[in-house]
């Protein structure tokens, strides 16, 4: 009998320990800490809840930027929590207690690309208007826009979709190197649409729908990668018609493209 009791107590103790050490799920939030730079469903919920109680006035887009950061700090300050701008377990718990989150309303509107808000105290149905369509949800360095990413992804896919991943990042990096270079236009669109600059613009392949790989390559380039090693030109030696391009100092070959300065 004693043995059975000891066994039972051990099991209860183990289960208790497992419960205590397991991550605590607060409301619908995941167990992850969320800080500036994060993105995704947790950030959507954080923004919606902060907006519900009037702390957050920006768009609910799932990107944890400065707007969300200051709103969260104000909330933490008001509720006597450590003010660090990080949504940890305590902050999420308090936020779940004092706010509401209509996940279906928020997600539906995000998917439809509507303009909407999630303030408490007034009907949600009155807080929606038609928007420009579903937007990508990407964390970008301040100087780039979603439009830049889209255009670059189109250019990379049109120019280098058959190339290795490294080659695709290198093509995106060449576009960015040109933007910074005094010999070229100083915007992404100016560089891409400069006449005679890219074959994909001339033959219309720039308007093909880019795949995820091309988008990922663009993200790596705008986040600092340059496999071209500072190139401002590249060409395919099999198809290149310009004699001038052969006069450029060559840096490296990736796939079918030679990258030059």
């Amino acid at each position, binding site marked *: 009998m004693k043995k059975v009791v000891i066994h039972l107590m051990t099991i209860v103790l183990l289960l208790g320990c497992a419960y205590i050490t397991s991550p605590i799920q607060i409301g619908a939030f995941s167990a992850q800490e969320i800080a500036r730079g994060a993105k995704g469903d947790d950030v959507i919920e954080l923004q919606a809840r902060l907006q519900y109680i009037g702390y957050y006035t920006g768009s609910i887009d799932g990107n944890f930027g400065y707007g969300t950061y200051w709103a969260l700090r104000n909330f933490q300050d008001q509720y006597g929590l450590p003010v660090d701008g990080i949504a940890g377990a305590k902050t999420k718990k308090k936020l779940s207690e004092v706010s509401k989150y209509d996940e279906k309303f928020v997600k539906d509107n995000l998917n439809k690309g509507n303009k909407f808000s999630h303030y408490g105290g007034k009907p949600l149905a009155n807080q929606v208007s038609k928007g420009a369509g579903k937007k990508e949800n990407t964390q970008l360095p301040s100087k780039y826009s979603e439009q830049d990413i889209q255009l670059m992804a189109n250019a990379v896919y049109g120019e280098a979709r058959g190339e290795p991943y490294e080659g695709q990042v290198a093509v995106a990096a060449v576009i960015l190197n040109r933007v910074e270079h005094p010999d070229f236009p100083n915007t992404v669109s100016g560089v891409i649409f400069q006449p005679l*600059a890219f074959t994909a613009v001339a033959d219309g392949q720039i308007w093909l729908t880019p795949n995820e790989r091309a988008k990922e390559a663009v993200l790596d380039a705008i986040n600092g*990668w340059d496999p071209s090693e*500072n190139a401002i030109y590249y060409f395919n030696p099999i198809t290149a018609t310009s004699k001038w391009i052969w006069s450029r*100092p060559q840096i490296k070959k990736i796939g079918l493209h030679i990258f030059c300065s």
Partner: protein
Amino acid sequence: MKKVIFVLSYALVALAIFSYGKVKENESLSIALSGQYANHMADASEKLSALDTAVKKTLLFNEAEGSSKAREDIWRLSADIQSSVASLPIDPSFSTSWMNYLSRLGNYAKENDNITNHQEYHKVMSQASNNLSAMAEEWEVATNGMVGGRLTMDEWRRKLDAEHSGHDWKKMGTTVKQYTESDFPLTASESDSMKKKDLRDMKDEKVTKEQAIERFKQLFPNVSNEVVGVEMSKPGSPYPFYHIRFAENQSVSYIDITEKGGHVLSYLSERPFGKEVLPFEEIKQKTETFLKNAGYKDVVYEEARENDTSWHLVYVRIEPEYKAKVFSDVIHLKVAKDNGQIVGLDASEYIRKEKTAPQPMVQIDWNTFFHSGVHIAENELAYVENDRLEQRLAHYLTVTMDENGKVGTYAVIVDTETKEVIKTEKLK
């Protein structure tokens, strides 16, 4: 049989009508495009003449104040012409040299507020004015056919591609390049900056191919089992490097390592990602352990951005004198969300560390410096490159301001000695 002939005849007629329509449509598109290009060319010609006048106007005065409006015009017009040139189908060697010249001319005029040597300004701009007049004439001749409507788009393209196009664009490009070298030679800071970018002046010992592979295996032991190939950079590269490609299971990756010193320029791995997501703190910890083991010990965390499969993290060097961040000496890392593996590293900007000099720090009253609604959230010291490509010690301020009920956040970088605002950037 009659029916077949009947159907075929109708089909032929329909095809002929369709083809005629298409030809007409292409013709009108071509005319519209020629019109656009002719407009840009004429616009560039007019502005070129206005630019020359603005340059001449600045030569009338001894004091910078007298010519400030004309200098502003030079900067604006050179940017406008650059924009026109950028949208034209012209010889690339000419357009790049021309854009460079215009950009340097505009910057020189803009920066003249800080230049006290007016004799030097007069000398440079007199020469620039002569060159601009010569260039304006050349430009008029070169674009004559298009602006006068005598050439269609196709004819213009053929003329550009032709061996003997009737106009020597390449010579024009070379001439502009010479103008740039004589009128606006590289300053010491620009030259230093280029050298840093090129890494060509590294004095480190050369490493062999085997040593480069060893360095790679030491840094990334989990992915470096199978080296697919090692190539040396091409002779035109300003700094020689080993380009190592490798594969491991489903990963395909590359790493570039400098020949001098065996420094990592960049590394990137492509692999499928799992659905699991590690907490950011764990990812950051793994990254910092990697940096320490790889010998990058003088860097601190700056920022991170989450994306679908990975985190992009940024670390910057801390200099010892003021413990200021040096934003030009940066390391980028890409870390997989599923297991915290380093799948990307770019340390090309970290290899040759910026030379930072001690600099006085004057008292700045931020209450009078900023408008009353601006709140300083953070103030840290950083070395930042200014317009003249000099590394300056600066206050790196994160400030907020109410913008119609929303909080706007800005990075404002202020020189500690001159109080010059080096940069203002809106933060997302």
